[in-house]
C-alpha cells in the first residue's frame, strides 16, 4: 500500500496522474467517436444491422442535390460572415482606441451584450423582428422608407440576410474584443515615432496597425471559418425547425442532423460529417500556411 502511494506521489509519475483525465476523455469522447464516425461512413446502418458498402455513401453525396444546396448555403454564409465580421470589428477596435472616444468601456460592454444570449433567444428575437407582417419591425422600417414589406423567411436572399444580420449582431462585439486585445499589445512607441516621421492617421493604420494585427486576424479568421461552416442552430431557430422553404436555410450540419437524428441514417450522415471535417481542415490549413503561421511557430 505504502509502495503504491510512494509511486503515485513521485515526481515522475505525478504528471501522468495530472493529465490522466484528459487521456480518458480523449479516448471516450474523441478518439472512439472519431473512429466510429469514419467507420460508419463506409457502412449502411439501419435498425440493428450494418453492412459495409465501401464508398457508396460518398458517391451518393456527389449526386445529392439537397446536400449540394446545404454546402452552397454554408460556404456562402461563411464567406459573407468573414467579409463582414473581420473589417467591421477591426474598424471598431481601431476607433475605440482613438482619443476622441468618450465612453470606451460603455461602448465595448454594450457591443458585447448579444454574445451573452443563447442562439435560442437570439433566434426567437430575429425570427419575429423579421416577421412578414407589416407590423414586424423590419417591415416597418422598409415601409417607412417607402419600400414594400418582405416575406423575409421565404426567399433565399432575404433569408440569408437575416442569418447574416444575426451573426453580425452576435459576434461584432466579441471580434472587436479580440482585435482590441491585439491592438493593446502593439507598442505605443511605434505610433509615436511614425507620427514624428509625419505619417497621418490612415498611414499609421495601414502600415502599423494592419500588419501587427495579423496574429489576431489569423485567429479570428480561423475560428470564423469553423463557426461558419458548422452553423446550424441559427438557421434551426430562425426557421422554427430544420425545414425551411426549398431548403433555403439548410446547412451542412443541418443536413447531417436531418439524416442522422431525424431520419436515423447514421452511415450517410457520418459521410456528410466527414466531408465537413475535410473541408474545414483543408480551408484552415491552406489559410494558416499561406499566412505564414507555422513559420512563426518554429522560431
Amino acid at each position, binding site marked *: 500500500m505504502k509502495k503504491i502511494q510512494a509511486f503515485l*506521489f513521485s*515526481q*515522475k509519475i*505525478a*504528471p501522468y496522474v*495530472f*493529465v490522466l*483525465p*484528459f487521456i480518458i*476523455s480523449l479516448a471516450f*469522447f*474523441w478518439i472512439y*467517436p472519431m473512429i*466510429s*464516425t469514419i467507420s*460508419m461512413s463506409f457502412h449502411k446502418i439501419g435498425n440493428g444491422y450494418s453492412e459495409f458498402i465501401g464508398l457508396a455513401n460518398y458517391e451518393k453525396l456527389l449526386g445529392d442535390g439537397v446536400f449540394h444546396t446545404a454546402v452552397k448555403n454554408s460556404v456562402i454564409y461563411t464567406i459573407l460572415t468573414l467579409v463582414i465580421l473581420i473589417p467591421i470589428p477591426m474598424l*471598431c477596435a481601431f476607433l475605440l482606441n482613438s*482619443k*476622441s*472616444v468618450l*465612453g470606451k468601456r460603455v461602448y465595448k460592454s*454594450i457591443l*458585447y*451584450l448579444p454574445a*451573452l444570449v*443563447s*442562439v*435560442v*433567444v437570439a433566434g*426567437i*428575437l430575429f425570427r419575429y*423582428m*423579421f*416577421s412578414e*407582417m407589416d*407590423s*414586424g*419591425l423590419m417591415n416597418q422600417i422598409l415601409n417607412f422608407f417607402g419600400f414594400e414589406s418582405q416575406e423575409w423567411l421565404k426567399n433565399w436572399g432575404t433569408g440569408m440576410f437575416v442569418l447574416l444580420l444575426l451573426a453580425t449582431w452576435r459576434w461584432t462585439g466579441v471580434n472587436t*474584443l479580440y482585435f482590441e486585445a491585439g491592438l493593446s499589445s502593439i507598442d505605443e*512607441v*511605434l505610433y509615436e*515615432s511614425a507620427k*514624428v516621421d509625419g505619417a497621418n492617421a490612415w498611414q499609421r493604420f495601414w*502600415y502599423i496597425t494592419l*500588419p501587427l494585427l495579423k*496574429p489576431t486576424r489569423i485567429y479570428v479568421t480561423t475560428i470564423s471559418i469553423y463557426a461558419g*461552416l*458548422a452553423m*446550424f442552430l441559427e438557421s434551426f*431557430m430562425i426557421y422554427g425547425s430544420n425545414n425551411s422553404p426549398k431548403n433555403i436555410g439548410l446547412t451542412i*450540419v443541418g443536413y447531417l442532423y436531418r439524416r442522422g*437524428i431525424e431520419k436515423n441514417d*447514421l452511415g450517410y*450522415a457520418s459521410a456528410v*460529417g*466527414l466531408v465537413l*471535417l475535410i473541408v*474545414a481542415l483543408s480551408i*484552415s490549413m491552406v489559410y494558416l500556411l*499561406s499566412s505564414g503561421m507555422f513559420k512563426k511557430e518554429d522560431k
Partner: protein
Amino acid sequence: MSKNNTKPNQRPLSDSSNLEVSTTRTKIVNDKNKRSNPLIKVLINGFFIIMCAAVAVPFISGLFASFRPGQMLIRNGLNLNLDFENWSLTNYSYLFDGSTGYLDWYKNSLMITVVSVILTLIICYFVAYGFAMYNFKFKNILFFLVITTMMVPFEILMLPLYKEMISFGLIDTFAGVILPGLVNASTIFFFRQYLSGLPKELLDAGRIDGSSEYGICVRIIMPISKPAFSAMAILSAMGAWNSMLWPLIVLRSAEKFTLPIGLNTLLTPYGNNYDVLVAGSMFSILPLFILYLIFNKYFVEGMTAGAVKG
C-alpha cells in the same frame, strides 16, 4: 487583409521604430491635445452610439413583446410600438405560477451549469498543471492532441457520441449532457498559458517544505491562480447555460429540459404557449447579464486569452 499587403509594409515600421523617442515626448503630448478635433469626436462617438442602439434594438423589442399577450407576437411580430394599453406583467406571472415547465427548465439549467462549471474547472486545471509544470514522455504528443481536438467541430462527433450515450444508458440524463464536455481543450489551453507564466521556483520551494506534488498543486499554485479560475468560470458558465445542440440530442423528457430546449419546444406551430416564449426568453438572459455586470473584467480576460497569443 491579404498577405500581399503586409510584407512590404513592415519595412517603414522597423525603420521608424529605431528613432529616438525620448526627445520627442513633449511634442507628442502637445500633439495629442491638439488632436481632439470636434468634428472627428462627433463622428466617432456618433458611430458608436448608432452601433450600440442597433445592438440594443432586438433586446428592447423583445422586452416590449414580453409585456404583450402572446398572440400579438404571432400576429404582429416584434416591434418598438409603444402600445401601453396592451402591456401587463401577466406573462411573467405565468413563468412563476408553476402552470408551465419553465421553472423546472430554469432549475435544470442552473444545476447543469453549476455542476459542469465546477467539475470542468477543477479537471482542466489539473490537466493544464501537468502540462505546464512538468516535462514528461509523450508530453508534446499529448499537448498536440489537445490542440487537435480544438480543430474538429463538435458537430462531426455528435452522432457517434449519441450512439455511445445510448449504449452507456445515459440518454435523457444530466450526466449524459455534462460528461462529454467536461474535459475542454480550450479551458486546458487557457490554464496552461496562465500556469506557464508562474515561476517554477514556487514548486521547488514547496518541495523543500515537504509538500507532495499534489499538495503544491492544490495548496500553493491553486490559490494564486484565482484570476484564471474567475475568467474560465465565467466563460464555461456562459457555454453551459447557453448550450443547446448536445442537450437537444440527449434529453428526451420535458421535465429534464434545459432552458434553451424548453424555449425551443414552445416555438412549434401547434403551441399555444407564446405568452411564455418571449417573457421566458428575456428572463433566461438575466443570470448572465448580472454576472456580466459584476465580473465584466473577467469576461474580457477569458475571451481574449486565446487571441493575443495567436
